[in-house]
Structure formats: structure tokens, C-alpha cells
């Protein structure tokens, strides 16, 4: 169970992060300003830190200097979208840079990626009879091993991570294909159909009319 430190001075956003990270199965500790975060970092160790940049007392860049020697990967979470700011954050040693406002699914995906990079994510995801091995990127059940194309695999992982959550078509499209959603495209539906067939998910991977899909 990965433990994530959230440092954000805005209470609503802090709450938002906490709620969603807990839902996604992470442990989560929150700090409202740089000082508090620094104090927490002295006492505890975390698997990942989500840092706002404009923080009272000690800003995000300075906190990065705290976390670096501790080997805690950092994702910056900020409203500063200028290229300079991103470059500064990334060259400073941050693992990723998420610009506010962000979609929750995207945030979770990026958190996952960083944790995986640091081998801190769980190597195995389970969904009912299916087991996903994140290392070898294989999907198996007691009876069979299913071959999935890379996109199908990513799609399945996304659904498993967001069980019970309605995923919007455009969101899914952005996350898996990393392009903007094209209104008439059938690509997504075709992938979903194949996924349903291969993994016998016909009853469980539901279409939500005009919105998207949900894995029950």
C-alpha cells in the first residue's frame, strides 16, 4: 500500500486529492503548508509526494530539496502552466508535473506511473477472476492466459483501477490514445468490444448511454 504525502494549501483541493487517493487504495497524509510538510518529512517516510508549488512559508521547489535526499519521488501539482515553470520543476528533479485544473483519472494514472517507475506500485492487479501482472503486462485467469494488444491492456488496467467509476469517452480517449477525442470515432467502441469478448466481460463492462463505460 503506497503512502502518499499531499501538500496543498487550498483546503478544497487537498480534500479532493485525499478523497480520491484513498478511494484508489492509497494511504494518504495531508499538509497545508511547506513548514508542516517539512516537519512530516522529517518524521515519516513516503512513497510519493504531491506538491503544490505556491505554498506558504516553504515553497514546492524548496520542498523538493527536502525530498530528493530521502529518495521520495515528487509530482508537482500547480496552476503555473508556463513552460519555464515546468522545466524548472522537472529539471529540479520532479518526476512529473500536473497542471491545475486536472482530471482525477489522469492524476491517478500519473501517480501510478511514477510509483511503478520506483517499483513502489503493486506488481499485480486483481479483478475478480483476472490477474494482471504489471511487470510482464499479462492478463491471466485460472483457466487461460489472454493475449491483449497494448491499447487493450492499458484500457483494461484503467477500468480495473477505476472500478465502479463511470469513465467518459473523451477522458478515456485522452488517457489511452493521448489525443483529443474525435466525435465520430469508433476506435474506442471497437476496442471495448474486443476487450469484452476476450475477457468475457460482456455483463460487467457496461455501456453508459451517451457518456461512456463503467466496469462494475
Amino acid at each position: 500500500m503506497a503512502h502518499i504525502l499531499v501538500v496543498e494549501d487550498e483546503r478544497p483541493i487537498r480534500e479532493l486529492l485525499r478523497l480520491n487517493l484513498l478511494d484508489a487504495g492509497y494511504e494518504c497524509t495531508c499538509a497545508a503548508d511547506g513548514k508542516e510538510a517539512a516537519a512530516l518529512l522529517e518524521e515519516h517516510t513516503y512513497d510519493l509526494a504531491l506538491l503544490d508549488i505556491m505554498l506558504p512559508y516553504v515553497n514546492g521547489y524548496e520542498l523538493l530539496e527536502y525530498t530528493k535526499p530521502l529518495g521520495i519521488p515528487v509530482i508537482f501539482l500547480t496552476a503555473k502552466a508556463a513552460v519555464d515553470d515546468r522545466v524548472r520543476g522537472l529539471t529540479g528533479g520532479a518526476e512529473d508535473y500536473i497542471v491545475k485544473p486536472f482530471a482525477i483519472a489522469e492524476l491517478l494514472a500519473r501517480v501510478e506511473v511514477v510509483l511503478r517507475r520506483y517499483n513502489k506500485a503493486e506488481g499485480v492487479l486483481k479483478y475478480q477472476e483476472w490477474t494482471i501482472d504489471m511487470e510482464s503486462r499479462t492478463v491471466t485467469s485460472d483457466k487461460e492466459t489472454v493475449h491483449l494488444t497494448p491499447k487493450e491492456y492499458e484500457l483494461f488496467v484503467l477500468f480495473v483501477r477505476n472500478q465502479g467509476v463511470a469513465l467518459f469517452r473523451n477522458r478515456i480517449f485522452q488517457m489511452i490514445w493521448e489525443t483529443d477525442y474525435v466525435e465520430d470515432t469508433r476506435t474506442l467502441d471497437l476496442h471495448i468490444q474486443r476487450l469484452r469478448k476476450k475477457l468475457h466481460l460482456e455483463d460487467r463492462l457496461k455501456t453508459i448511454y451517451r457518456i461512456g463505460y463503467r466496469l462494475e
Partner: protein
Amino acid sequence: MKFRWKILISNLFLLAIAFSVSGFLLIQHSFERNRNREIDVALEENQFIQIALENELVYQIRRNEFDGLASLTEAAEAIAGNFSGSRSSFAVTDAARNIYYNGADYSEVRWELVESLSERGQKNYIVYRKDQTWYVETACSLNINNEFAFLFSRRDISTVFDDREQMLGFYALTASLVLIICSLINYLLALWLTMPIMHLNRTASVIASGSYFVRCVVRSDDEVGELGKTFNRMAEAVENHVNELIEEGRRKEDFVGNFTHEIKTPLTSIIGYADMIRSRNLPDETRILAANYIFNEGMRLETMSMKLFDLLLLNREEIELVPIRVPNLFEQIMESTEPMLSAKSITMEIDAKDVYILGEPDLLKTAFINMVDNSRKASQEGSKIILAAHQEEETVYLEVRDFGFGIPEEEIQKITEAFYMVDKSRSRESGGAGLGLALTDRILKKNGGTLSIESKLGEGTTMRVAFQAYHLEDRNDEAGEMDDIAELGEIEELGEIEELGEIEEMNEAKEIEETDDYIMEDIFGEEKL
């Protein structure tokens, strides 16, 4: 061409002209004097020969050897001996141009000299050149036995001309030498004179390349020194201007940065919570929490957009200034801010003299409410805020004093910038976006007021606004309208119109209440909910 070269060349030109003209005139003058002297000498010589010749003839007559004109030859030969070896020689002729005597190397007789001679004693001369030699030739007429004869004498005056040539040559040499020396000195002088200009030029180039802080060194009090001083003044102005531009740029950049931050922060919450609600079946509690966050953050955006809108509008709208009695203004402000102050148990005191200012009442109220709100945010529970007003000569000072945290000195300048917050997390908690004081500052400027801020950390802040004092007497003198209104007011108290007045008053009161509510909502959107 460089300026020093121009100075050098023009000076040299002038010098050369002066030297050559004066030198030439001098030499010419002395030459003429010498020549005239030689001519005089030649004339005297001619006279002398004439006398000698006549004496000789007289002598011949005495000895009865005189033989008319023919005797001239003998007589001339007799005196010629006296002239051998001198620079002169002579010839004797008669009127029919027969030559009776021709002295050594006297080859040519200038007949034109004697054409106008008729009587004895008359003389004529000519200066001419022959075979590189200058001569002065003199002629006079002789009357011998009623017959005319002419005496020509010639004198070599080449030395005079040679002297002139030599002097001219020598003078040209010396003048050239002197000119060369002069031009050297002149060049150095020009260099020395143009040095400050070159220094100025170098400074200007340095400034042009971006080092606006550089100044030139002024060493003299002359025009160049003046230019240097003016230049420095200009550089100063440019530097200030550039700094202002840089500061302005920084402010704009900050504004844009802060603006995006302030917009994106509530949007992040709104989008995030909305995303949660739309894509998941949330427990009731969480759903209400999420909706509440969306609502609050939406209100925050609304507050901010209203204030921004006010800020923008203020720049465009013309406002009408009316006389305001300051204690009345303060009372209205106290009424409006009472609820928000009591929530933090802050008390408010009014210490206002009976002074008047010109302004737009609603805007000024907004401005002062913002200032009080600012003080409230900086104050601890149970603290005190004082509204004070007094007049010093022609200036009325309105003050909002608090005893809160105070503002660090280096931040006072920035506090009226949009989105600036001294303590970001605290301001956020107390519901600000950093626009209140920016708005206040604009309003005050628009009303002709000047805001100054004094603050000591831990002791409190005084925000002082200076207005031009307004005198009631002015009103009486200037505007009869006011009196009319006052009279109307009096009439309203009587009879039928009284009711009308009351209704109006009520309406007015209601309006004020409404605007108050609006402002309160504006400021406490969050807390109220």
C-alpha cells in the same frame, strides 16, 4: 569627418589666409617703398647727369668749342667717366631721334618716354624688365640753342625685385613652418576640447547597450559641461522610465500569473468535485461535501470576477463628485461593517472632526469597507479598529487604524497590486483574493485621494488617505443648486410633500441596505455559506 579635424582644418584655413594676406601686404609695402626710393634715386641721378651735361656744354661754350647738338656727344663722353662702374648709364638724343651718345650696354632707347616731354626740366620715367633685369629709365628734355635734345638715364633696380622674391620665399617657408607647428598645437587643443564630447559619446553608447545606470563625469562649467549635465539628467529620466517599465512589466506578469492561479485554484476544485459526482455513486455525505465545495469555489470565482469587473469599470467610467461629510460617511461604514467585525468581536471607534471632502459616496464607501475588511483580516479577536479624520490646512486626512499583525516594510509597496497577499494562506482562509486593496487604491485615486500606508510588524497598520479639503462656504458661493435642494428639504417637511419625502427616504434606506448586503455577500460569500 571628426569634429576635431573640422576644427583643425577650419583654423588652419583661417591662419593660412591671415598669414599669406598680411605677409604679402607687408612685403609688397616694403617693396614699393624700396622701388620708389630707387626711382627717386634714378630721378636724382638723371637730374645730376643733366646738370653735369649742361655744365659741360657751358664749359664748351666758354672755350668756344660749342658746336650745336654735335657737341653733346663730346660732353656726354666727358662725364660718362663718372658713371663707369655704377648701376646706371645714360644716352643722349635729339628730337629727331638721332642718338648722340649711347652709354655702355645702353642698347635700347625708350622713345615713348619723351613723347609728352616738351619743355626743359620736364622728367618722365618707366620701370621695365629686360633680360631678367629690372630697370628704371628716366628721361628729361634739354634745350640747347633752342633745339630739343633728350637725356635718357637708366638705373638697374633688380635688387629691389630680387629682395622681394627672396623675402616672399623666406616668408613662405617660415609661414609654412609656423602653420605646421600651429596645426599640431591646434590638433591637441581640439582633442582636449572634444574629449568631454567623446566621453559623452562613449557613455551614450554604453547606455544605449542597456546599462542605464551609467553617468558621464562632468568636469567643466562650459557648454559641454552643461550638455553633460543635461545628458545626465536625461539618462536619469530614461533610467527611471525604464525601471518603471520593468516594474510595470513585472506587475503585469505578476498579474497574469496571479490571475491564472486565482482562476485555476477554484476551477481545480470545481472540476475535480464535479468529476467525482458525475462519474461515481458517492455516499450522501461525500456528495454534499463535494457539492458544497463546488458551490463555495464558484462563489469565490464570482466574487473575484465582480471585483475584477469593478476594477476594469472604474478605469472607464466617469464619476460625479459631490460633497461628503466625513463623519456621516464613517457612520455608514460602521453600520455596514458591524456584522463582520462582531463575528470576530472587533470593536470600531470613530474619531472624526466635522470635515468635508468631495467624492463619490458609494465608491468611497466600498473603498473604506475594503480597508476595514483588510484591517479585520489582520486583527486578532477582540481587537479594535479606529476610523479617524482630521484636517491640516487644506488637506483632510482619513485614517483606518488597526492593531493587528502589521505589514512587512518591503511589502507595503506591493500591497495595492491586484492579487497581492501578504500572507497567502491566511488571506485565503479569510476569503480574500488580494483584490480588495487594489480596488480601494483605484477608487481613491479616482476620487482624488492619495493612499499611504504606515505599518509596524506586530503593532498594527494605519492606512491614511489624503483628500483636498472641501469648504461649506464654497458650496454656498458656488452652487445655488445645493441651497435649492436644502430648501426643498425644508418644504418636504411640511404637508403633503412630507409623505413623498418619507417614501424617498425609505427607498434610499432600502437601497443602502441592499447595496450593503451585496457588498457583504461580496466579501463574505464563503463565511455566510
